[in-house]
């Protein structure tokens, strides 16, 4: 196990470096730059700005300077668009916000999605199953950019129960609507995945054998069916968690949370290179970390898996 962790960490460093290099090159390949504007800047003014931010250097030098800044001082540089802030500040402010509603959405999705999928599979072709399948289909076709304005319309304008947006230091009133909007589709996906996976396992030969041996149904499910049925679910949970805690542009935009998802997308549109790179590296690091956690969970769920 320790060997696996050491190997993964060793692989993570070149992986992140490759992400950095590819992102850097792609960003600079895109037309326009951070200071391209409708009122084009006079050449001298542009030259001053490029000199200040080091954009007058060759790309390889910019890349080296940026990497050295991160490695030596953990400095991701200044934002080109938001002049009063650095990338470190943007991440330090946005990541906790995104993580808070992301973790809550994860908890909600897992707490409702997996049990609902399990119950639906165990009671196949009953009303419970139809409800679960119906919910799963409805929620899947109702994306969060539709859900979010609808929730604001109902809970803020019509019922006047909850604020329509803002973060307000993460108060629970401000958290409810973003969490519902974000978790619904994940809940539906987990329900569908869990149901399908458990049904498949329950139809397998070794379960039939266990039942033929006269084992009680509870034992069959808990000891023999549940763990293997969870493998595809766990596979999905890793990237799902990373997706949730690196932020959602839609949730940040509609609920004005101040989270990272908005900055990530907008930094690409604004060619705010340093913000984009900083968030990409953070997201990349989290993907590596949670893939490792998923792999460790595999080992626990299925001891046959060897690394």
């Amino acid at each position, binding site marked *: 196990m320790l060997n696996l962790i050491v190997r993964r960490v060793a692989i993570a460093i070149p992986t992140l470096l490759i992400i950095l290099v590819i992102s850097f090159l792609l960003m600079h390949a*895109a*037309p*326009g*730059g951070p*200071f*391209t*504007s*409708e*009122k*084009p*800047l*006079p050449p*001298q*003014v542009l030259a*001053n*700005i490029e*000199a*200040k*931010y080091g954009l007058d250097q060759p790309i390889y030098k910019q890349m080296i300077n940026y990497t050295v800044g991160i490695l030596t001082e953990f400095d991701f540089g*200044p934002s080109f*668009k*938001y*002049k*009063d*802030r650095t990338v470190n*500040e*943007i991440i330090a*402010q*946005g990541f906790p916000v995104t993580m808070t509603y992301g973790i809550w959405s994860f908890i909600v999705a897992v707490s409702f999605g997996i049990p609902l999928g399990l119950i639906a599979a165990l009671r196949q072709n009953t009303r419970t199953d139809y409800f679960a399948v119906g919910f799963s289909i409805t929620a899947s076709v109702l994306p969060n950019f539709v859900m*979010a*304005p609808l929730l*604001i*319309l109902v809970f*803020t*304008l019509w019922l*006047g129960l909850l*604020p*329509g*947006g*803002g*973060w307000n230091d993460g108060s629970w009133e401000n958290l409810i609507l973003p969490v519902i909007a974000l978790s619904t589709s994940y809940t539906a996906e987990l329900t569908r995945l869990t149901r399908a996976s458990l049904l498949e396992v329950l139809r397998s030969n070794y379960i039939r054998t266990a039942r033929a041996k006269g084992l009680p149904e509870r034992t069959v499910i808990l000891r023999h069916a549940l763990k293997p049925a969870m493998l595809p679910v766990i596979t999905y949970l890793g990237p799902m968690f990373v997706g949730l805690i690196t932020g959602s542009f839609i949730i*940040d*935009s*509609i609920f*004005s*949370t*101040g989270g990272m998802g*908005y*900055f990530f997308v907008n930094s690409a*549109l*604004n*060619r705010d290179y340093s913000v984009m790179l900083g968030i990409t590296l953070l997201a990349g690091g989290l993907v590596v970390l949670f893939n490792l956690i998923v792999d460790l969970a595999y080992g626990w769920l299925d001891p046959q898996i060897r690394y």
Partner: protein
Amino acid sequence: MKHCIKAILLASAVSWASGPLLAAGTHPTTGEALADDQTFTYQTIDEHTSVDPQLVEDVGGAAIVRDLFEGLYNQDADGNMVPGVALNHTTNADKTVYTFTLRNNAKWSDGKTVTAGDFEYAWKRLADPETASEYQWFMGVMNLKNAVDVMSGEMPVSELGVKALNDTTLEVTLAGSMSYFPLTTTHSSTFPTPQWAIEAHGTDWVKPENIVSNGAYVLTKHVPNETLERERNPMYWNDAETIMEKVVIKIVNDENVALTRYLAGEFDQTGVPTGQFLKMQEQYPDEVHSNPALCTYYYSMNMGENGPEALKDKRVRQALSYAIDRDIIVNNILQAGQFPAYTFTPAATAGFTVPEVEASTMTQAERDAKAAELLSAAGYGTDNPLSVEILYNTSEGHKKIAIAISQMWKQKLGVEATMQNQEWKTFLTTKSEGNYQVGRAGWCGDYNEASTFLDLVGSASGYNDSKFANAEVDQLLLDSKTSDNPQPNYTRIEEIVADEVPLISIYHYTNAMFLKPSIKGWPFENVEGNWYSRNLYKVAK
């Protein structure tokens, strides 16, 4: 001692007498009953770029800066220049040296006096290459002596044409005569900044815990991409006349969600979502407003090297302009009170009289007939159709306008117009490199004078995307800088532009917004959209 006691007693009496008036919550001038809670909350679509006067570059950020800082001059509700830190100014005969007299009771929020030296520092900071402000170019607009050389690093910053003669006298030397120079001092990039705070905190000086400002408000809270709050500055020289206690920004990136939250009572002001103005005006007549703005929407015609041969023919450009039915665009597509444009400079521009160009006096049927005639004379018709490509950036509004115009050209002139949509930065790059034929554009004035628009058609202008060059226009522009009455020059330039059509003016913008009826003092007639929270107040319902 006797006098001193008398003065204290008198001051106490005055404050006691005026106390009940304010306690009763009535406006000192209008007598309207004031709301107990004097908080103005408004929505913006995006986070501001900065609150540093020399670094801010967006309209929303400039509004914050106008509250936090005060320049030499302010604007009144109609957009006229009124004293700010400066009480008045004098100028020499050829209008190259301006001397401003500053009030001696202007204070920074930390209690220090605002001096002419603070302006000298700020202006030099703006021009300094090391500051690398995107608004450095405004020094060129102001025409300050040596600004160009200072910005390029060829001259030390100390050589910039601004000098504090003493604490209350600021002398400005221009590179050449400019009659409207004082107007430029209402721009936020010219506001003073506190050298000691900047030196003490570096780039962090604009954080709420560090900032020192001289405006009617101080920054008290900033949660990026969520909220910003500013509260009354007791050190402001005119704080006694300020009524609004607190101003709060809520950043909501989605205009439809913003409207829902406005209707739920979360804000006092928000924008009107695109395409909903008429419906909203009918539903909320007391809350929806639309006023002229200092902006023009136009199509630039590429007459440069990479531009198509056809557009180098004046008759083709004229035909394309005549065939656009501006009334349909403003009345059927935009529907927010915009004005059809036949000249580049909006009628709302101060001191500018819109000249009567031929197109503006014709009916659309006459314009269409003339367009067909011109295009035919240029050799294009059904047997030899003209092909053009319209370039625009991603936006439903731009798309609708491009579709309408391409259809007008197709139906009236048989022109095969294709449309190319590009993401914003790609669009800007394509245009700046001259790789387009007809390109969407918009221009808003940086100050309220016609030259802010007409300079754009000068051959030396960096914003002249059509690469139009006309010696008479260049001379007229040059002469208008020194003229006491530049209107005849402006009339002639507009006539040349209407004849040569380097660009097709389509409509002049309006500012459309929702504002709660309880908020009073909004400067609807200020076409630059410059507002100051200290002029606002909330009346009791």
